[in-house]
C-alpha cells in the first residue's frame, strides 16, 4: 500500500468518519481513498472549495466531538494555519497530515522537510503547540495515525503527522493494529445538544478580558509541559561509545542509517538519534548525548531547521553541524558519509 493510502485506511480503522480535504500533490491519494471509502461506511468525505474551508469544517466537526481529519501538502498547510490556531485556541482534537513538498511558495512537488519550523513552532498565530509525529516507514505511518487520534483526544489539541512526498508515494508491506484495544475518550465538552439536561457547551477561542485569556493560555501551557514529560518518542542506536551522533527524522533518517552503517564499517564510532515526535522534541536524550560525544550532525531535507532545536538542547556541550539538501533533492548516503568522515578528522 502507498503511504498516503495507508494513512487514510489507518484513520478509518481508528474510527475517523469525517474527512475534509482539497487535492494537492503529493498527498492527493489520501483524499482519493477517503472519497472512495467514506460513503461505503457511513462516513463523511467532503472535498471543500479550498484548504481554508476544509480546516474550518474540521473545526466544526471536532467541536461536535467526532474524530475529524484533513490532509494537505506544504502550500495547503499554510492556508490551514489560521484554522489550526483557532482549533488549538478552542482546545479541540483533530488530526492534520502534511505530506511535505519543497517550498517556499508553490516550490516543487518533490519531498522536503522544510516545513519543520511551521509544524513545531506554530504556523498559525498565538501561544500554541501541536503534537507533531514524524514517521519514517509506512508501517510507522500507520501506527502514527492511530496514535495521532488518541493523542488528539487525550489532550484536546491538534496533532500533525509530518511526512514527505517520498513517504506518501512509496509502498511497503504493512499490517494494521487492532483498534479494539485502544482507549476511548469521553467528550462531555462537545456541542451535541443539551437535551435540556445540562448547560450549553461553548466552543470558543475568543476571550476579551486579558486576565481571563492569560489564565486559559497558562493552563494550556501546563498541559504542554505535561506532554513534554510524557509523550516524547525517539529511536536511537550506537549512542554508547559514539564520537559522532547524527540526528535525523522521517525518510531522511533512513538514508542516514545507510550512511551510519557505512561509517561504522570504516571504523568510525557513530550513533543515531531519530526523533519520532518533533514536538515534544527529544531534548533530554540530546542534552545527555551532547555531553558524551565530540560532535553532533543534523541531516535534513531543508537549509537547517531542526538543527536549531538540537543546538538549544545541546546547549553548547558539543558542536552541532548541519548537512542538508533542499528544493526536493534527497540526500544520498555517500553525501552524508562524507560529512561524517569530515567530522572525525
Amino acid at each position, binding site marked *: 500500500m502507498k503511504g498516503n493510502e495507508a494513512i487514510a485506511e489507518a484513520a478509518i480503522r481508528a474510527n475517523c468518519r469525517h474527512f475534509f480535504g482539497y487535492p494537492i*500533490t503529493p498527498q492527493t491519494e489520501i483524499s482519493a481513498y477517503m472519497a472512495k471509502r467514506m460513503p461505503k461506511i457511513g462516513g463523511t468525505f467532503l472535498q471543500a472549495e479550498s484548504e481554508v474551508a476544509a480546516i474550518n469544517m474540521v473545526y466544526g466537526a471536532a467541536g461536535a466531538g467526532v474524530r475529524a481529519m484533513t490532509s494537505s501538502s506544504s502550500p495547503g498547510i499554510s492556508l490551514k494555519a489560521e484554522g489550526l490556531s483557532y482549533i488549538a485556541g478552542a482546545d479541540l482534537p483533530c488530526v492534520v497530515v502534511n505530506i511535505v513538498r519543497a517550498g517556499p511558495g508553490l516550490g516543487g512537488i518533490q519531498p522536503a522537510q522544510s516545513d519543520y519550523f511551521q509544524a513545531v513552532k506554530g504556523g498559525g498565530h498565538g501561544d500554541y503547540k501541536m503534537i507533531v509525529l514524524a514517521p519514517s516507514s509506512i508501517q510507522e505511518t500507520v501506527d502514527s495515525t492511530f496514535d495521532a487520534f488518541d493523542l488528539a483526544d487525550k489532550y484536546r489539541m491538534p496533532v500533525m503527522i509530518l511526512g514527505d512526498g517520498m513517504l506518501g508515494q512509496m509502498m511497503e508491506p504493512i499490517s494494521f493494529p487492532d483498534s479494539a484495544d485502544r482507549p476511548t475518550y469521553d467528550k462531555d465538552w462537545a456541542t451535541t445538544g443539551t437535551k435540556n439536561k445540562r448547560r450549553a457547551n461553548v466552543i470558543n477561542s475568543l476571550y476579551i478580558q486579558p486576565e481571563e485569556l492569560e489564565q486559559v493560555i497558562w493552563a494550556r501551557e501546563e498541559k504542554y509541559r505535561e506532554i513534554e514529560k510524557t509523550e516524547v518518542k525517539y529511536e536511537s542506536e550506537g549512542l554508547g561509545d559514539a564520537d559522532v551522533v547524527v540526528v535525523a527524522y522521517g525518510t531522511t533518517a533512513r*538514508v542516514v542509517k545507510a550512511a551510519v552503517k557505512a561509517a561504522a564499517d570504516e571504523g568510525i564510532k557513530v550513533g543515531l538519534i531519530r526523533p519520532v515526535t518533533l514536538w515534544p522534541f527529544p531534548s533530554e536524550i540530546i542534552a545527555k548525548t551532547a555531553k558524551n560525544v565530540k560532535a553532533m550532525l543534523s541531516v535534513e531535507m531543508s537549509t537547517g531547521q531542526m538543527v536549531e532545536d538540537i543546538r538549544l538542547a545541546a546547549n553548547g556541550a558539543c558542536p552541532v553541524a548541519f548537512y542538508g539538501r533542499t528544493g526536493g533533492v534527497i540526500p544520498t548516503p555517500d553525501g552524508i558519509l562524507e560529512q561524517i568522515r569530515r567530522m572525525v578528522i
Partner: protein
Amino acid sequence: MVTIMLHEILFAGFGGQGILFSGKVAAYAGLVDNLEVSWLPSYGPEMRGGTANCHVIISDKPVGSPVITTPTNLVAMNLPSFDKFEKTVAPGGIIIIDSSLIHKTSDRSDISFYSIPATQMANDMDIPRLANMIILGKLIKVTGMATLDTIRKAVEKSVPPTKTELIDTNMKAIEAGYHYL
C-alpha cells in the same frame, strides 16, 4: 527462496510504458517470498510524459534507504534512462535494455549486459502495451529473483479484481521474456 538476498532494482523508461507497474509486480514477488520490500516511484513532472522510474528493493533484512543510488539491477526501456543510469549500476550488477528502443550496448566490463527486443516482441504478440512485462520476465530469469510461480502470484495481487482476465495476458508476456534467449 532465492539465494542472493539483496536486489536493488531500478526500472526506468518513458511515462506510459508501465515502468511503475512492472516494479510493483517485482515488489509483490518479494512479498510472496516473505522478503522485505519497498517500492518508490517517481511522481514528478517526468511521470507526465518524460522519463519515469521506480526503485524497488527486495531484501532479507529490513529495507534502509528506499532510494537507490547504485542499483544492482537496471531495467532500461528508453535511451535517456540508459544513458543516465548505466554508470550508476553497482559492479557485478545487471543491465537489461529494450533493444527495440535502445540501439546501444554497454562498454562496461564489470557488469552483465542483456538486451531483449521487448517492444518488438510485444507488438508481434499483439500485446503492444506489455513490453514492460516481457522485460520483467527477462529480469527474473537472469537474476533468479523469483520463479514463474511466484511471479504469477505477484501478478494476481497487482491486477485489479475487476480485470482478472489480464492475469493470463501478463503471464504470457512474462513467460515470453523469461524464455527469450
